[in-house]
C-alpha cells in the first residue's frame, strides 16, 4: 500500500488439466488490509484458485506475487501463508497446543517466542481450557477456532480460507462470520475467503470476486457487486432475483416485457438496437407490490403462499401465465391474504438489463 504495488498480485493465471480448463486468464490484485471473498458455484474453479495461491498446485500459465516477490515456483511451506480448511484438518494425533505450535516449530522459533504466540492465539480465539485436548474431543465450532488459530499463529503474509464455515450449523456460522471479519481487521493482513454462499461473501468481505466456469465474472466492492452486477451471471447468482424476457422498443429508450403488458424506461448506454432481446433481472426485494387496479401498469398476479422469514415476508405469486414470482416485502402486522390479486412493478433504475447472448 505504501509504494503503490499491490500486496498480492495474481497475474493472468490459468490452470488446465489436459483439455479441461479449470481457470482461465485470471488477474486479481489484493491490498494488505482487504477481506476478499471469492464467490462462485460448485465447480467454478474457486477452490483451484485458492490452491494456486497457497502453492498446493501449480498454474499452467501466469504468475503470482506476494509483496512484489514472485512466488509462483515456491512450494507452500516457503510462502509464509496460513490456511484454514473446510474439514479443519487438525492433526488428530496432536493436542490443540501442539497443533497450534506446529507452524512455529517449522520456522524454528525459540521456545519463548512459541510460548508467547500460543498465549496470544489462546487469548484472541478464546481457546482457554482447550489447549491440552485432542481434536476429536472438541465441538465443531471449537475445532474451527483452533484451525483458525493454527493459520494465524505464525504471522502469515495472508490467510486463505476454504469454505471454513460449511460444516457448522447455522447459528454458529453467523456468529463466526462476524468474528472472522473482526480478526481480519484486527490483524491487518489480507484474508482470501472462498465460498459458494453469497450471503457469507457479502456480509464478511470488502470486495468480492465472482468466478464462473473458470473466469473472473466481476470484481468489486460488495455493495457494487450486489447493486450493479456486471454480467447476467452475477445478476443471477448474487442475490435472489427474477428474470423477465423483454425486447427493446422502437424508440430505443424503453424495453417491453415479452409476456406481460409492461414497459420500462431503458438507460441505453449499451446502444442496444430496437428489436434486440434483453434479459431483465429484478431483485426480489425491489418489487413494488400494490393491490390490483384496472389500467395501472404492472404485472397482474395472485398470492399463492406466504413464507414468514423473520424480519420480512416472502410472497409467492402466480401470474396469469402460471409463472411464479417471489416478492420480498417488509413485515407488517398481518400478511396480505392468500388469493388477493396484486400488481407488480418496479423502479427502472433498480433492475438490471442485459442483452441476450447469441
Amino acid at each position, binding site marked *: 500500500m505504501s509504494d503503490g504495488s499491490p500486496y498480492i498480485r495474481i497475474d493472468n493465471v490459468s490452470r488446465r488439466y489436459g483439455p479441461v480448463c479449470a481457470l482461465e486468464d485470471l488477474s486479481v490484485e489484493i491490498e494488505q488490509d482487504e477481506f476478499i471473498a471469492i464467490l462462485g458455484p460448485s465447480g467454478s474453479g474457486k477452490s483451484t484458485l485458492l490452491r494456486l495461491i497457497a*502453492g*498446493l498446485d*501449480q498454474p499452467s500459465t501466469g504468475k503470482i506475487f506476494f509483496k512484489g516477490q514472485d512466488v509462483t*515456483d515456491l*512450494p*507452500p511451506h516457503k510462502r509464509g501463508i496460513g490456511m484454514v480448511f473446510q474439514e479443519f484438518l487438525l492433526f488428530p494425533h496432536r493436542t490443540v497446543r501442539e497443533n497450534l505450535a506446529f507452524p512455529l516449530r517449522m520456522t524454528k522459533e525459540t521456545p519463548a517466542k512459541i510460548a508467547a504466540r500460543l498465549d496470544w492465539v489462546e487469548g484472541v480465539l478464546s481457546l482457554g481450557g482447550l489447549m491440552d485436548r485432542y481434536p476429536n474431543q472438541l465441538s465443531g465450532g471449537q475445532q474451527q477456532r483452533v484451525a483458525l488459530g493454527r493459520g494465524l499463529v505464525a504471522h502469515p503474509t495472508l490467510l486463505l480460507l476454504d469454505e471454513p464455515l460449511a460444516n457448522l450449523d447455522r447459528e454458529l456460522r453467523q456468529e463466526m462470520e462476524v468474528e472472522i471479519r473482526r480478526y481480519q481487521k484486527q490483524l491487518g493482513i489480507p484474508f482470501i475467503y472462498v465460498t459458494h454462499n453469497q450471503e457469507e461473501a457479502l456480509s464478511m468481505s470488502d470486495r468480492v470476486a465472482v468466478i464462473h466456469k473458470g473466469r473472473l465474472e466481476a470484481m468489486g466492492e460488495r455493495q457494487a457487486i450486489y447493486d450493479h452486477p456486471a454480467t447476467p451471471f452475477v445478476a443471477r447468482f448474487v442475490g435472489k432475483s427474477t428474470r423477465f424476457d423483454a425486447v427493446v422498443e422502437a424508440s430505443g429508450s424503453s424495453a417491453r416485457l415479452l409476456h406481460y403488458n409492461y414497459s420500462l424506461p431503458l438507460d441505453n448506454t449499451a446502444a442496444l438496437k430496437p428489436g434486440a432481446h434483453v434479459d431483465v433481472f429484478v431483485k426480489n426485494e425491489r418489487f413494488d407490490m400494490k393491490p390490483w387496479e384496472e389500467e395501472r401498469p404492472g404485472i397482474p398476479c395472485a398470492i399463492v403462499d406466504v413464507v414468514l422469514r423473520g424480519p420480512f415476508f416472502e410472497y409467492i405469486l402466480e401470474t396469469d401465465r402460471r409463472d411464479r414470482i417471489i416478492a420480498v416485502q417488509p413485515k407488517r402486522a398481518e400478511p396480505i391474504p392468500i388469493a388477493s390479486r396484486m400488481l407488480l412493478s418496479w423502479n427502472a433504475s433498480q433492475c438490471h438489463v442485459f442483452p441476450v447472448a447469441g
Partner: protein
Amino acid sequence: MAGRSDFLVKWLLGAILLLAYIFLYMPIAHILFASLSSHPNFPYPPEFNIDSYVRLYTNTVYQSAFANSLIIASCTAVLSTILGFLATVGILRFAGRRALIYAIFFASPLFVSEILLGISSMSLYYLVFGVAGNMLAAIIANSVHCFSFCFLIMASLLYKYDWRMNEAAIVCGASPVRSFFEVMLPLTWSGILSSLICAFVLSLNGLDISFYLLGATPTMPSVAWGALRYGVKPELYALSSIINITVFLAIILLYWRIRSDRKTEA
C-alpha cells in the same frame, strides 16, 4: 511441489514395486516351467511337456492326500467364514465400547504362530482324549487360524456398510431373515466370498496345523513336505502349479465381479 523430484521419486518407487513382483512371482513361474519340462532342475528354455501332469493324474498317493486336504479346506472355509461373519457383525453392530477389546481378541490367533496352534491343539486332544487327533480336530484348529483372517477381511469390507439399510428393509415389511438375504447379502457377498476363498486356500496349503493333528493321515502339504525331505518329484511341481494357477484365477475372477458390481452400484 517441484515437478522433477516428484517424478524421480515416483519412478524409483515404481521400480521397487516391480522388483517386488519379480521377486514374488519368479519362483512360482520357475515351478511352472519346471512342471512342464523334462529337465525339472533347469527348465530353460521353457518346454511344454505335460508328462508330469499325466503322472500326477495317476498317482494315488497324491490323490488321496489332495482329497483329504480338500475336505479339510472346505469345512474350514465354511466354519471360519460363519464365525468370522458373526464376529464382524457382532463387533460392528453390538459391541459398543468394548469393540476394540473384542477385535483384539478375535485377531489374536494371528499373533500366535501356526506351529504353536498346531502343537497346543495336539496337546489338548492328547490330554483330554488320549489321542493325537483326527480330521475334525484338524478342521477346528485350522478354523481358529483362518477365523482371524476371515474376521479381518470381512471387517474391512463391512466397515462402510450402513446398518440403517436393515432398518429400512424392516419398515418396508421384510422379516429379519428376508432383510438379510435381500438387502445385506448382496451388498456384502464380496466379503463373504473373499473370506471363503482365503480360508480355503490357507488351510489347503497350510502345513503346521494339520500336520500335528493328523499324524499319519496325509494331506497335500505333508506329502509335499515329505518330498522336500526325500527329493522333489516333478508331479509335485505339477500339483503346485495347478493350485497356484487356480488360486490366481479365482482371485482375479472375484476381483472382476467386485469391480463390475461397484460400477453398477455407482
